């Protein structure tokens, strides 16, 4: 197991270096000079030249990359030239919002997807199963911003049950915080549950044919126990996989949802940085999000190995 972890960790190093290189190259090779962005179109060439020199922009690209990477490794991602905030401060301030949103979404998604998957697997081929499978397939064609509009229209405009936009921190007003987060989390969950249901359903149909399920049934175990304990356990692997696959989509979805519902999370920070051409924040956030994404995939891989011994011994 230790060797397996070490090997995977070693593989992370080149991937992370390549990710940082790509992030840097996107930011520096593409048109648009940072000095011009900071000083505006009216700046004199001398001023631009001076600022370029101060920021090291007149150095060769490879040297700038090395020195940038050096700073990053020391935890210095630079600071916004608009707000003066460092990238790390900005991210630390907004990360809890995004994480709370994604956790809530995943919980709601599982709460809808898992029971439906079980119900469908038990009566596979029935009218209910066919209806739910069809619905799930249809839902896969509904992008987050579409369901957001629908939910806002239904719950905020027509019924007026929930606020359409806004946010209060959890520490100040837990109930209010949840009120603001219900619609955004529901929006993301609407996109999550079909994937969870589809995969888990086919997984469970296979599991329910196993001999040990027949044995459990013959022993007279309760139906709920068979389903939730005996049949769901082997599917935990599948759930971990889906969650892993979903992270990337969840991050992208969070970006859109945070913008629509005006939640001060990472996604909104990024979109805001794009609108204001705050390139330092943009570069830092993209790098942090990508690195975080790589690490989360690593954790999912590890969980997978813990759950399935075949993988860590290389039999998969």
């Amino acid at each position, binding site marked *: 197991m230790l060797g397996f972890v070490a090997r995977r960790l070693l593989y992370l190093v*080149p*991937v992370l270096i*390549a*990710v940082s290189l*790509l*992030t840097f190259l*996107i*930011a520096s090779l*593409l*048109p*648009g000079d940072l000095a011009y962005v900071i000083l505006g179109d009216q700046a004199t060439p001398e001023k631009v030249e001076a600022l370029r020199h101060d920021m090291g922009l007149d150095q060769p690209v490879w040297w700038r990359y090395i020195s940038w990477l050096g700073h990053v490794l020391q935890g210095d991602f630079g600071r916004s030239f608009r707000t003066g905030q460092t990238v790390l401060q900005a991210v630390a301030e907004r990360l809890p919002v995004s994480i709370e949103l994604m956790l809530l979404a995943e919980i709601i998604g599982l709460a809808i997807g898992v029971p439906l998957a079980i119900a469908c*697997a*038990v*009566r*596979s*081929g029935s009218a209910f199963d066919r209806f739910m499978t069809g619905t799930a*397939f*249809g839902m896969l*064609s*509904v*992008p*987050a*911003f*579409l369901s957001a*509009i*629908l939910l*806002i*229209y239904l719950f905020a*405009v027509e019924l007026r049950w929930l606020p359409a936009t806004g946010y209060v921190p959890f520490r100040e007003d837990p109930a209010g915080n949840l009120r603001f987060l219900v619609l955004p989390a529901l929006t993301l969950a609407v996109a999550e549950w079909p994937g969870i249901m589809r995969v888990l359903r*086919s997984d469970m*149909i*296979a599991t*329910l*044919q196993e001999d040990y*399920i027949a044995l459990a*049934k013959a022993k*007279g*175990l*309760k*139906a709920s126990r*068979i*389903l939730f304990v005996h049949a769901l356990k082997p599917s935990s692997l599948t759930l971990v996989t889906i969650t892993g696959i979903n*992270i*990337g*989509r969840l*991050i*992208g979805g969070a*970006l*859109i949802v945070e913008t*629509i519902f005006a939640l001060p999370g990472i996604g909104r920070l*990024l*979109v805001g940085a*794009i609108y204001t*051409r705050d390139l330092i924040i*943009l570069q830092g956030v*993209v790098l942090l*999000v*990508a690195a975080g*994404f*790589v690490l989360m995939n690593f954790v999912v891989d590890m969980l997978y190995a813990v759950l399935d011994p075949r993988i860590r011994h290389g039999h998969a």
Partner: protein
Amino acid sequence: MATLELSIGEEVAVTPVRRTRRLGPLFWAAIAWMTFVFVAAALANLLPLPSPTDMDMLERRASMSAQHWLGTDGLGRDELARLIYGARISLIVGLCAPMIGITIGGALGMLAGYFRGRFETLVVGSMDVLLAFPPLILALAVTAYLGQSILNLTCILGVLGIPAFMRVARAATLVLARREFVIAAQGLGATHARILLRELLPNVFLPLFAFFLLGVAVTIVAESALSFLGLGVPPPIPSWGSMIGEGRESLEIAPRLAFLPAVTMFLTVLSFNLVGDALRALTDPRQGAL
């Protein structure tokens, strides 16, 4: 005490029914809708439509009339014309971007799956780097730097599709390369190029094409999402995403401005998903291997 009323008996013990190979009415409905949107988009210039960008401040959010069949939007532009011209953008980006993916990704995947070795490691490794970025984030970052244009948008969404196409092509090639007809061709002294193009490509193409249709659906959604955020197709070019974004502002007074493009987009994406999924089921190698 009813110990076990659930029917995990015979019903489930039967092996899951193999999906019928007939294409149902839904499939043909999807094809019909795709054709309809395609024809409307292609003939947009010839149709007797008002301009999609002409504003009429006196006719803002006008309801349906003989002059404006679906009414006008917040700037007095004809909604139907914008829907149809928006279909153009969605289809151009939606078809061209996966074209980049299927060409580059398909070629890389076939070469990697056929030659194996170092080259395969390199290809898979570099795809891992591309996959390390949450796709929407990378698309946003690149369009932010490159500037918003249809060409840039198509290119970046196309590049983002390469890893997925590479995986599909590589997986199919890995299986096929061990099959008898390839070994026979090798035995007959066929060149690598000939085996790749004449033996493998026709077989890899079908699963790739099914995946292409799913890629179109994903790309249309991605383009709309970016345009919705105001970071995709530059205004005033109409796009379903930006129309939904603009319609959101007037959700209370004129919900139809958001819902019309939303429904159009949903039906289009659903159609591509349905057709792609049906073709994928038909060409699934797991079934063919029987």
